[in-house]
């Protein structure tokens, strides 16, 4: 048992470290290091531009999308090298967040299902950040129940005509392309009538409307499709096979090993280390310590769970299912951590923004936290996944599984 790199890994790490040290946008390091959930902004620069510039620089030097094949803009690196890169990239990894969907989900789906000429045309600029991609799956009628989506695609000559609405599309407002899951046959059971496409987000008939979130910020969008035409050659997979194609996409999302999940613990520990309460330093208070200890072991448990998965990668094996717990644990934890940090502030905790303690870091975290327990699979869906795929418990009884989609009830009461 050890934490040591193999000689090859050490060499790779040294090369990566040297390149990052010589090329990273150091002027933003401090701000990026201090960012936390609900708060990743640069005071004097547009983070989108900074992120794109950093991504392009990485791509030009062969450090973008490390695990992708070279011909599509990647490096052909091993999974463990990708993890090492993430460790070395450190705070600058925050700048990759706007590319996560494109690199982690859209790209792999294109690689698996797009025509060769499309792969060569679209993947390199996706890798280099010149194009940003989004994923158009969720709908008002289908969140956790993705296969319940209603956006229609109807064949018209060599094109498909799209009508409908998507929601919760991350980054649609700055995306150039998207992958789109549609219903092509409503007369068959819901999983069987779906088809996947990719499209230019600037196509006529696409309208993006930012959603004002409960936190006040707008990271997500509604996307409306009105008679949007997509050529058939932009179809991904067979007609009616969209569900299986989407599983490839989602599987890629969940296999992102080593991506640090935010728990809020380092921020809280740092805060408590300097905070004075009425009767002394917070860090010496027994009640505070008890709370901190409980979160400390969750944070370290997640860290070392991830290390176990990385070790499997390093041995060239597939990691076990342990990593599926990350988002589930971190999501509710960061919400509790933020709540507690405000509790320690007393009534002053009500104040948010620049006038608040630590310029409102924990207030921003609190207000953003509910989203983390929903996005990318709700806590409940994550528990289902663990129960079914890890523990082998039966799937939920699905009353709509064999019913033609257009016969499934659409309303609860009345």
């Amino acid at each position, binding site marked *: 048992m050890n934490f040591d790199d193999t000689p090859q890994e050490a060499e790779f790490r040294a090369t990566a470290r040297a390149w990052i040290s010589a090329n990273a946008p150091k002027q933003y390091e401090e701000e990026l290091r201090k960012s936390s959930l609900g708060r990743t902004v640069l005071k004097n620069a547009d983070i989108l531009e900074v992120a794109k510039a950093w991504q392009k620089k990485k791509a030009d030097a062969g450090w973008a999308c490390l695990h992708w094949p070279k011909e599509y803009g990647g490096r052909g690196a091993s999974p463990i090298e990708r993890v090492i890169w993430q460790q070395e990239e450190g705070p600058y990894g925050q700048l990759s967040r706007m590319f996560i969907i494109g690199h982690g989900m859209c790209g792999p789906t294109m690689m698996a299902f797009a025509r060769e000429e499309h792969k060569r045309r679209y993947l390199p600029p996706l890798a280099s950040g010149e194009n940003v991609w989004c994923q158009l799956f969720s709908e008002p009628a289908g969140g956790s129940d993705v296969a319940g989506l209603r956006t229609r695609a109807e064949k018209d000559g060599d094109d498909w005509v799209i009508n409908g609405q998507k929601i919760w599309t991350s980054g649609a407002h700055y995306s150039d392309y998207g992958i789109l899951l549609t219903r092509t046959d409503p007369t068959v059971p819901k999983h069987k009538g779906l088809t996947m496409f990719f499209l230019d987000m600037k196509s006529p008939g696409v309208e993006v409307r930012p959603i004002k979130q409960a936190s006040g910020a707008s990271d997500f969008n509604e996307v409306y499709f009105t008679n949007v035409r997509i050529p058939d050659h932009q179809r991904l997979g067979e007609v009616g096979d969209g569900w299986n194609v989407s599983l490839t996409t989602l599987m890629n999302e969940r296999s992102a090993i080593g991506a640090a999940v935010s728990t809020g613990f380092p921020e809280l520990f740092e805060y408590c280390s300097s905070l004075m309460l009425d009767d002394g330093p917070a860090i010496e208070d*027994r009640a505070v310590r008890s709370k901190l200890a409980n979160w400390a072991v*969750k944070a370290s448990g997640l860290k070392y769970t991830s290390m176990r998965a990385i070790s499997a990668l390093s041995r060239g094996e597939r990691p076990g299912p342990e990593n599926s717990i990350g988002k589930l644990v971190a999501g509710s934890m960061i919400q509790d951590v933020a709540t507690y940090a405000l509790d320690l502030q007393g009534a002053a905790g009500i104040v948010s923004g620049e006038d608040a303690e630590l310029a409102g870091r924990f207030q921003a975290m609190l207000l953003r936290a509910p989203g983390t327990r929903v996005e990318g699979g709700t806590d409940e869906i994550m528990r*289902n996944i663990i129960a079914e795929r890890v*523990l082998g418990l039966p799937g939920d009884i699905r009353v709509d599984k064999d019913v033609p989609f257009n016969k499934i009830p659409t309303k609860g009461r009345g």
Partner: protein
Amino acid sequence: MNFDFSDDQKQLRDQARKFLAEKCSPKAVRVVLDGKTPYDKELWKGLAEMGFLGVAIPEEFGGAGAGHLELCVIAEEMGRANAPVPFSSTVYLAAEALLIAGSDAQKKKWLPAIAAGEAIGTLALFEGKGNPAPKNVKLTAANGVLSGVKKPVADGAIADFAVVAARTGSSGRDSDISLFLVDLKAGGVDVKNLTNLDPTRGQAEITFKDAKAEPLGAAGEGWSILTQVLDRAAVLCAFEQVGGADRALEMGRDYALDRIAFGRPIGSFQAVKHMLADMYVSATLARSNSYYGAWALSTKAAELPEAAAAARISATQAFQHCAKNNIQVHGGMGFTWEFDCHMYYRRANAMALGLGSLSYWEDQLIERMRKKNAA
């Protein structure tokens, strides 16, 4: 990076699991649970023959000389099987104290006997309510004899010898405490068996009346040695707890698959599925924290105090969580003496206290993290 046990260590685990499945069935555990014998002597002998008792004891002292990672692997299996033997007190506490602070003669006297299954040892630290702290040690040592009462002492009624924490000063500092070795079969020792939460592991009250004792380690070093012993034991117990948590989770999962209610396996209800998923989460976090503890223990890393406390807390929580919800999944049957669920519930809750309570370790963890950050 290879943050995992080696293939040899995994093989040892399989070997231990197979051995314990044969020799330590729930039926065998029940013989001790029902009070028919204070511990499973056959199993104890078998563990010695397999080389498990001395797995981390150097060869020169009669052990297998493998190491602490191997001991962690065995510990996990002992926890999974709920083994009714004085393994933790003898191997994690007494043997480790000897390894850390024993003289050559002391090691030669006791360690080979431990490895051979001929001597049971324990640590006599607690004196009634309270957590490990120098001020809670009132038993005195003077002129080579001890006087005072220790309670509870794990496996005290069956132990041949004990490492005893005694007061040798009154300065109010840690250096007031020294450790002693006492032959419990000699004079001046009165042992009373106590009923306890987990009858598969005994607890006793031991009264020392001018009992002859020899120093273990230097005078005034007792607390520092004890802290090291407790940290090591915290990691090793964490593996037992992880093994127990996994077994309790498995029992719950299996029952949820087999039990039909409302016309379907109860494991198809989300309320039950999610409860089991949460148990898996706890058990996984505990396992990962314990692996880190194992790494720190086996490499004698400076991180051990922090890693041990984290493993202790995480594994304690996981075992308690899995054991209590295993009963819940089983419903009424889980609350019968006949079903095995309560054996894990008892063990989980007894283990949660044996090295000091959760709140004690929470405090320790944050104190240790604070010190590291300040350094």
